[in-house]
């Protein structure tokens, strides 16, 4: 354990007040300053669909959307997201429980194996399709490569994202 960690831990008790909009719901929090956004989501809000894996912003399992942008919540302090609009995997389905088109495509294509990277992958894909409703395969491959699927199910993930893109275009047409 490094000295950095020790310093961090002694600072952990300083508390901050912040307001976040998580999955459409505005909430006030009092959190330790050293708390990561991931810890806030998982431990304070019990949104455990967001997964902890590398805790170094490398693998993408903890991806959430912060103001529409994909972000590694493990490497983001909770206070950095103060005032932001956060979407997690739990907030993606419609009010009636209907899956988001990206979720549906992942489901149809079985674009997951162990499923640990899946919430992150789905949010990553959603962010892409919000930016670019008609991405090329190369764009999808490049964009999705910021998530690691150790089971190596990449082909199906790319297929699912492309299919979700055309599905979403059809729906908006």
């Amino acid at each position: 354990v490094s000295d950095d960690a020790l310093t961090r831990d002694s600072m952990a008790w300083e508390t901050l007040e912040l307001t976040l909009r998580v999955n459409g719901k505005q909430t006030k929090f009092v959190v330790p300053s050293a708390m990561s956004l991931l810890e806030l989501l998982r431990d304070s809000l019990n949104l455990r669909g967001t997964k902890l894996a590398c805790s170094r912003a490398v693998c993408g399992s903890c991806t959430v959307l912060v103001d529409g942008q994909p972000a590694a919540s493990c490497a983001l302090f909770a206070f950095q997201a103060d005032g932001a609009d956060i979407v997690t995997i739990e907030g993606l389905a419609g009010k009636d429980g209907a899956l988001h088109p990206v979720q549906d495509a992942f489901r149809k294509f079985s674009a997951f194996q162990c499923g640990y990277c899946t919430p992150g992958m789905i949010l990553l894909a959603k962010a892409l399709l919000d930016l670019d409703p008609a991405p090329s395969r190369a764009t999808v491959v490049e964009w999705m490569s910021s998530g690691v699927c150790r089971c190596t199910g990449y082909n199906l993930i790319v297929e699912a994202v492309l299919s979700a893109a055309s599905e979403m275009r059809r729906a908006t047409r």
Partner: protein
Amino acid sequence: MTATVKLSANFGRDARSDADEKVSGRAVYTADIAIPGMLHAKVLRCPHAHARVKQIDISRAAALAGVHAILTRDTYPAHILSGNAAPLHGFLIKDQPIVAVDRCRYEGDIVAAVAADNEAIAVQALHAIKVEYEELPFVGTIDEALRPGSPQIAPGAPAGPQLRYGPGARSCYWPRPNVCFEFHYQCGDGDVFSTCDHVFEDEFGFSRMNHFHLEPFVSVAQATHDRIELWTSTQMPFPLRGQLSQLLKIPEHCISIRVPFVGGAFGAKSGIRTEAIAVLLSMMSARPVRLCYAMEEDFLTASQHAAVVRLKTGVMADGTLIARASEILLDAGAYADVSPLVAEKAAYRAPGPYRYKHLDSRCSCVMTNTTPAGAFRGFGGTQATWASESQIDMIARRLGIDPFDMRMKNLLQLGEAPVPGEGGVDSDLSEGLELVAREIGYRQNRAGTDRGVGLAIGFKDAATSGEPAHAQARVKITTRGDILLQSGAVEMGQGLMTALSQVTAEILGTSPQRVRYAPIDTDATPFDRGTIASVGVAINGKAVEHAAQAARSAVLDFAANRLGCSAEELTLENWSIRRRPWTRIHRRGRSQLSGRSGCAVSVPMRVLGDRLGRCRSRSRPGNRPLERDQACDQRRCRPRHQSPCVPRPGRRRRGNGLRASFVRTNALPGRPSHQRCRARLSGSIGGGSAAGIHRDHARARTRARPVRRQGPGRGRHAPNCKRDRQCGRGRRRRAHHVASHYGGKDFART
């Protein structure tokens, strides 16, 4: 029992049964488990490669507010010590302590563990623990460990149980310093080397990989006065229960292990990892304890075996393989873990799927002061296959033969035994290889392109060595006609719960949606040996099939009894019972269940269900049920075999991966930019072997290690030779180099 089942049209086409949970984020993994009052644990790791632990002072840490329990060699609960000795674990050789006793054997070895209110306090407590080390000389590589006079890592370490093998195979523990196990197999006459036209000797160096399962090693333990509940991310709940029972001196029936979804394992989660510490801390603090490693700690817990593989292969001028002697050195790291079993497999798989007159395979596990190596998909086969297939390519080029033709000439034929006394090969490898070659356009002229192609064959004996593989399953039909499937097979991404649910649904004539795969709990789930070695569908699937057939018979017998007809007249279709000649049986009321033909009585499953109770079946492929605890009968008639080389005709399942890789080589120097693979898998799925080959080609350009070579080989280049780096500077030369290695001269000249 053996009803012929016609597969329904949508078999295998429905969404996976875990799809909804996984895409919605609702799937629960062990890392997501939280229990009220739960403490969080962290472990203190040794910063030295090899050190004697002189003194551990925990007084400052223990005084911290929020610290509930500290485990060191000095604070072990008394009941688990045998005499004064701390308990040790391991698969065969029990040499690994829960926390370091007299010395630490690698950088990252666990010295102490703390349970506190949260992880931050636990980390603070770790800082407050003072450990006095005396650094010792260490060995970091296989070569260093084998050098005469080098420091011994585990003097006085115990041997494992004696293993019995078939003819030609033998093994021993600690044959020389720093070698914990050696396996040797021999068949045929070694003199045939002198009759060969060429004898090629090549050496291959294999670096270790990490599993990198995304879900960390994690467990949550709750110990009450006579009972331990443990949620853990493991592939082997039942063997784990046994190991914990032995290690912690707790009866197995007091340990209940639950396995939620597993976020990737790849072999890593097949032994005691976080579990023993979590349980002990829970016992000490009388609180539930969660121990979750960080990714860095995962890297310090288990890895694949680094290896040196020396192959000596005798061939005739026309490419006919005659003999092969293999010497494999596995870097076992600081503790033995499953290394002996990996050694058996590596030696067994070194010859590959080819015909030889003489084989001599030797594999040694060398201890070094590095992270312990353990099970990793492929289980020794990866190292052996990579070296073997590379050498086949190299020999083919030296002899001026196309690597494809060389393979076709030597491949085992359908039914042919790989070694004397073995069961025959159960798939047509030649046909498969031809198909792969055709699919990838092997013969296409790629001159002037930036692509090369290569072929390799993975050959794997699935379903574990040792006791014959077996599994159990239970199919329950509830009072309302829903189906609960219980099996100990762990879903860790491979889709097993979908596959097993489909098997059940097909046999019971209903849709997989009606089947629920019950969560694993060792108290309720039928016994299982672990989800390892590609056994899932082949072995567990068979048990599930038998259980479903038993349930089906029970349904039909019950209905026949109620209807006053014979069970043969009835069948199950769309989850309702029909009576031959396919008269639909309608319902008017339960009381009217009579068997008169034409009688309008329906027999909905929910009426029948409450009388069915449960059906149960256990199965091993082609033989009677056997559970370890009930193995006495079996042992009387057949000694316990441990050997992968034991002749047991027809008993071994193999997974064969025929795989070709395209590798485009013009992107980043030294890194394959794109791979596209097509594979034909026959027999059971040899995931590990396929992965080995996949790696084979990916690795070929990413690592450079000189290959020493004697013998009459011409100056061509090994997949990992140094010139690869040099000629990698220019795109064109690089492509040439790779093509010459992978493509062979026929088609890939640039």
